[in-house]
């Protein structure tokens, strides 16, 4: 009897695993990748928890933390969050106006999300970096999250094809051997993965916690370094594992071509 149940569970697990590789991504997508014009100093930010390549959303509870760090100064933006819909699911939006030159590192600490398919909680600590009015100092500073990607490539002003390099820190220390999932924000579903392996790209961090990825086409790209949190969360009387992802989003652009 127990054997039967175990076998059934295994079979079920297999079936679930064999499905298309849906990678979860914490997302913070700004309305503009850089701020250069004072008339457009207000940046809209869309915060969600989604499958960016497939365009499937999940309901996201109000984050625990949402803020911006600029020049070592932290500003809490949690109160600015308004409910919204992204990919037909609950998400959040906010606006932030740059008043002077700076580099805004926006970060989100979400409520852990329970994923029944994986029987674990998922918590993606997500960042995006927006520079304003010519300033660019400070893009390489960590925010100090439990897990985070500290960029080694400036995370804005990049062309398509550039190699993006980042360092994964867990509790402030470089994390070797961590899988980093890479996914494209397929906003208008303009692209389709040729096969299920193509939906999510994967690279691993080296002994120093460093990973690299060459970006193949233009748009927003998300990098999610997946680690297991040391703690578990109690659910229905059982201790569930917590996947702690460190996510960073960056936009890569085609050069403008002169019109002849």
């Amino acid at each position, binding site marked *: 009897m127990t054997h039967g149940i175990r076998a059934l569970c295994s079979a079920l697990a297999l079936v679930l695993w064999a499905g298309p590789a849906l990678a979860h991504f914490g997302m913070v997508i700004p309305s503009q990748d850089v701020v250069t014009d004072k008339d457009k100093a207000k940046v809209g930010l869309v915060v969600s928890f989604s499958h960016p390549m497939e365009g499937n959303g999940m309901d996201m509870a109000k984050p625990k933390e949402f803020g911006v760090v600029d020049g070592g100064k932290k500003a809490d933006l949690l109160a600015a969050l308004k409910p919204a819909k992204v990919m037909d699911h609950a998400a959040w939006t906010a606006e932030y106006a740059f008043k002077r030159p700076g580099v805004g590192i926006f970060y989100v600490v979400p409520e852990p999300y329970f994923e029944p398919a994986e029987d674990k909680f998922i918590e993606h600590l997500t960042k995006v970096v927006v520079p304003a009015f*010519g300033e660019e100092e400070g893009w390489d500073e960590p925010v100090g999250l439990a897990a985070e990607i500290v960029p080694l490539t400036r995370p804005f002003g990049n062309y398509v094809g550039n190699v993006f390099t980042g360092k994964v820190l867990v509790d402030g220390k470089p994390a070797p051997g961590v899988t980093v999932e890479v996914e494209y924000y397929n906003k208008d579903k303009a692209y389709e993965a040729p096969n299920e392996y193509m939906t999510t790209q994967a690279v691993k961090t080296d002994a120093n916690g460093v990973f690299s990825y060459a970006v193949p086409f233009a748009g927003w790209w998300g990098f999610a370094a997946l680690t297991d949190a040391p703690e578990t969360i109690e659910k229905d009387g059982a201790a569930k594992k917590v996947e702690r992802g460190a996510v960073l989003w960056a936009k890569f652009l085609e050069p403008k071509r002169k019109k002849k």
Partner: protein
Amino acid sequence: MLSWRRWLWIATAVLFVASARDALAHRVNVFAYVEGDTVHVECSYSRSDRVRLGEISVQNAATGQVYLTGTTDERGDFAFAVPPEARGQKADLRILLKAGEGHQNDWVVKAEEYAAAAAAPAPTAPAGSALDPAKGGGPATPAAPPAVAPAKADGPDRACLEAAALGPVIEAAVEAAVEKKIAPLRKMLLDDKEKGPGLAEIFGGIGWLVGLAGLAAYGKSRKAGKGA
């Protein structure tokens, strides 16, 4: 008078020139904001590397006419009062920085920005008509100069009309006074977000606003009372 098309063309040209300079390696940054009657200019290579003794030239963005020149201080800062001539022409200000070794950049302060920061210098002449060409220059700006208001008069009564005409004048005066009072507050906010202004300062500022609004309302009601 120039047609709006021509204005649009000039604005585009200015924008193009401004953005074309952005991409130099080791580029130098100019950023400016307006407080009351003063334009504050900040010049830097980066947050920690400022432009000391950089040459500043303030020009009419459309014609290139130079209003004033100067140099930045040790912190890369420079401040100047909006030139009355520029205000008269409702000219966008191009702030050109030359930081040596061919490093230069510029920043445009739009006429709307300084007009909004300091309420119009007293609406003596009908400034409304002179304003229109500037509107062709760029996307809609939220700040409508207060000088455009007098058209509101609805009663045929002369006294009533006078009171209505006085309204904008009082409003402009109050706005100017408020701007003067909150300018230091705003600077504090900008200068040091970390420390931030104390609650006392914020409430003080709000107090000023409420007080001045009250004064304006009182002034208006007295004028209206006299006419009746």
